[in-house]
């Protein structure tokens, strides 16, 4: 994507890492504040059961948001992640109900995710389509394919081991949250400590300059979209386990939640700015808003308003800090 001449007014030099730390610190502060307020306001928030619930509820969007972040750092966008989640719930439940052993079913499902991501890479790199368009097209088409496969109905998964996984925990931590860790650790290494991460930022900042510096720009773009779709497929497996159903439309609209989490977590939609922990925090902030509102028995419609308002406030202060730094 072209790097826009943004009117970046007066950006004084500053340490990037420091800044990232600062930003994530302030998000941690927001999250902590919410935790403290909710612990005071309700007797139920700070209970192990609820914290487990929260960990489970935020887990899926968190993983989607991490994948989305890779793409956004390259100055792209992946609108299809919600549709991929829905589609892969169909695939994995079809396979499992078809008698395929669970590990193989999961592997195949993840490969389907990889294939979708590779298709996005192809569309962008080879066909020259804007990311918004190619992923909007797959959003639409995948829904159709998923509905067609199931003839519009929902597949119920009868394998209790598979559905039990999402309910289970290990060392007191819900299994779904373990998946977040399993995704986040390599993601941090990839993005923040490997050369490939540096290339991702470079492509997001100026693909031509990256290319002339020997970066395999096409490869980087393929990688970003494959990782995003792979994360979505992982979430598809998690969701199939959690709801016990395969249904192509059940994650409709999650792409916006993932993008919102990522942006709340400090990712810039212009590319070249973002972290792994940002979107994780963003996703759990959104989950906490919903959980807290439920516990406080706030009218569910207020949750929309609060979420919208908080998105504005958090991103606003983030921008302020950025400009000040």
């Amino acid at each position, binding site marked *: 994507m072209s790097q826009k001449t943004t009117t970046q007014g007066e*950006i004084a030099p*500053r340490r990037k890492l420091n800044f990232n730390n600062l930003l994530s610190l302030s998000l941690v502060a927001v999250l902590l504040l919410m935790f403290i307020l909710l612990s005071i306001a309700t007797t139920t928030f700070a209970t192990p059961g609820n914290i487990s619930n929260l960990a489970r509820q935020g887990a899926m969007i968190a993983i989607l948001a991490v994948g989305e972040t890779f793409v956004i750092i390259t100055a792209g966008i992946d609108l299809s992640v919600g549709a991929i989640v829905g589609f892969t719930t169909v695939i994995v439940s079809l396979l499992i109900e078809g008698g395929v052993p669970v590990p193989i079913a999961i592997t195949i499902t993840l490969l389907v995710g990889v294939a979708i991501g590779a298709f996005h890479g192809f569309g962008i790199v080879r066909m020259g389509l804007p990311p918004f368009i190619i992923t909007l097209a797959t959003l639409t088409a995948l829904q159709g394919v998923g509905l067609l496969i199931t003839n519009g109905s929902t597949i119920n998964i009868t394998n209790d081991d598979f559905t039990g996984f999402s309910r289970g925990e290990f060392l007191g931590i819900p299994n779904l949250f373990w998946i977040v860790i399993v995704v986040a650790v390599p993601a941090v290494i990839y993005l923040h400590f490997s050369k490939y991460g540096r290339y991702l930022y*470079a492509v997001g900042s100026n693909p031509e300059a990256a290319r*002339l*510096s020997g970066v395999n720009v096409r490869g980087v773009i393929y990688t970003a979209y494959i990782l995003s779709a792979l994360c979505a497929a992982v979430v598809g497996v998690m969701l199939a386990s959690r709801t016990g159903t395969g249904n192509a439309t059940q994650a409709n609209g999650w792409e916006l939640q993932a993008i919102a989490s990522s942006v709340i977590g400090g990712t810039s939609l212009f590319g*070249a700015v973002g972290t792994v922990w940002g979107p994780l925090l963003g996703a759990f902030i959104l989950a906490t808003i919903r959980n807290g509102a439920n516990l406080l028995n706030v009218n569910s419609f207020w949750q929309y308003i609060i979420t919208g308002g908080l998105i504005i406030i958090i991103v606003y202060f983030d921008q302020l800090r950025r400009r000040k730094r």
Partner: protein
Amino acid sequence: MNALNVAEAAGGIAPSSVPILELRKLDKRFTGTHALKSVDLSFRRGEIHAIVGENGAGKSTLIKLLTGVHPRTSGELVWLGATVPLSTPHEAIALGINAVHQEVVLCPHLTVAANMFLGDEEVRYGLLKNRQMVADAQKVLDELGFNLPAGVLLSDLTIGQQQLIATARAATRGTKFLIFDEPTAYLTRQEAAQLFALIRRLKAEGVTIVYISHRMEEVFELADRVSVLRDGQLVGTRDIDATDENELIAMMINRSIEQVYHKDTIPLGATLIEAKNLSGEGFEDISLSVRAGEIVGLYGLIGAGRSEFVTSLFGRHPIKSGEVVWEGRPVRIRNERDAINLGIALAPESRRDQGLCLNLGVGHNINLPVYDRLTKGVTISARMEKEHADRQIQDLRIKTQSRNALALSLSGGNQQKIVIGKWLNHGAKLFIFDEPTVGVDVGTKAEIYRLFSALLAKGAGIILISSYLPEVYELADQFHVFRAGRQVATHGFKAVSHEQILSEAIGV
């Protein structure tokens, strides 16, 4: 917009001593940088006033304060005796202050005419008079002697041509005070000559000109007075007749340099690369070779096809026919990585579009080509990453707060140093520098030329592209003149006169 505005006083006026614009204790701080420190300066009506200074001295910042682009931190601006706020570009334009900025600031998606009339469109009954505007713009361009079409999209022009459009635009808006920030950086001699003619004409019409340049001969050719900035402070103002190049350089960098163009005698080694009859998009039938220890210059007008040639050689664009021989072996360079792996480095001409990731850190930019070598196992060695970046920053004296500062916060010349710096420790054998000293101050230029010598001494070869003839002339062991995508002449070190080379390049 009317065509060239005629000065109020008929027949032109001599530079008067009446100040048109006075700067009083003008001060600008960016968070972390004190870019201008309490500058007092006054510009006289109808003079050409040059401003010189090192990269990062604050020249562009000064211009941005005068044109309302940035708000000033403190200080006063007095326009024709009255204090003015001058806080928006709109206000500056209304007063008659216009600028041609260091980087072209126009809309690539609009036509040349639309750009020239932007903000000042001709309308009838609220509807745009498009055809009229194209005709009028064309008239202005023709009158200025710029041989450019008004009806095409701006993005169809080269950077130099775009810069001329920006100039035409600024010159024709009822301008009383016109600022040029390194206008010739992307212009050929021929285009520069057109520009100078325009500047003299404007001066004759009573327009005050502020002229920023790193090229001393331009300053002496044009200016009435010259002011020197150093580290955000005004060092002094001189009448042009009362000073010389050495004094100015000493004022700028607080020391003197004997000689800008530095060339050691280095014995030539084996042939590194040989291009045989290469053709591709924008160039045809080019043959040349580079030996270890040799600088091969490519001179020509903008659009002559030199950049197209070298970027193709670097694998960015396909080569249609011909052969490349690298260290005696025929090779096929299919992409940039092939070139880099062979040992070729390219510092491209446009730092903004090709050279830099502007919103990434200086260190990140410097290290980009070498992350492979900074990687230990899976992860990058943080220590090596730091050391490598810091070494380049020190060696090239890149003026930056730290290696983590974003590239876009650096001054133009310092950005250019990053583009060069990222290849210096790469260990390449053939360095291609495409307009390496555009916007670079004299002191740094001298450093860069010394660097060339150091590279050559280590056995490297250099292809040097420049539209600035003296650079090629003084440095290249051999150089090729390009015209319209073809190689029209080849000469040895200082073998022929400037005039002959120019006429070869222009084709008269």
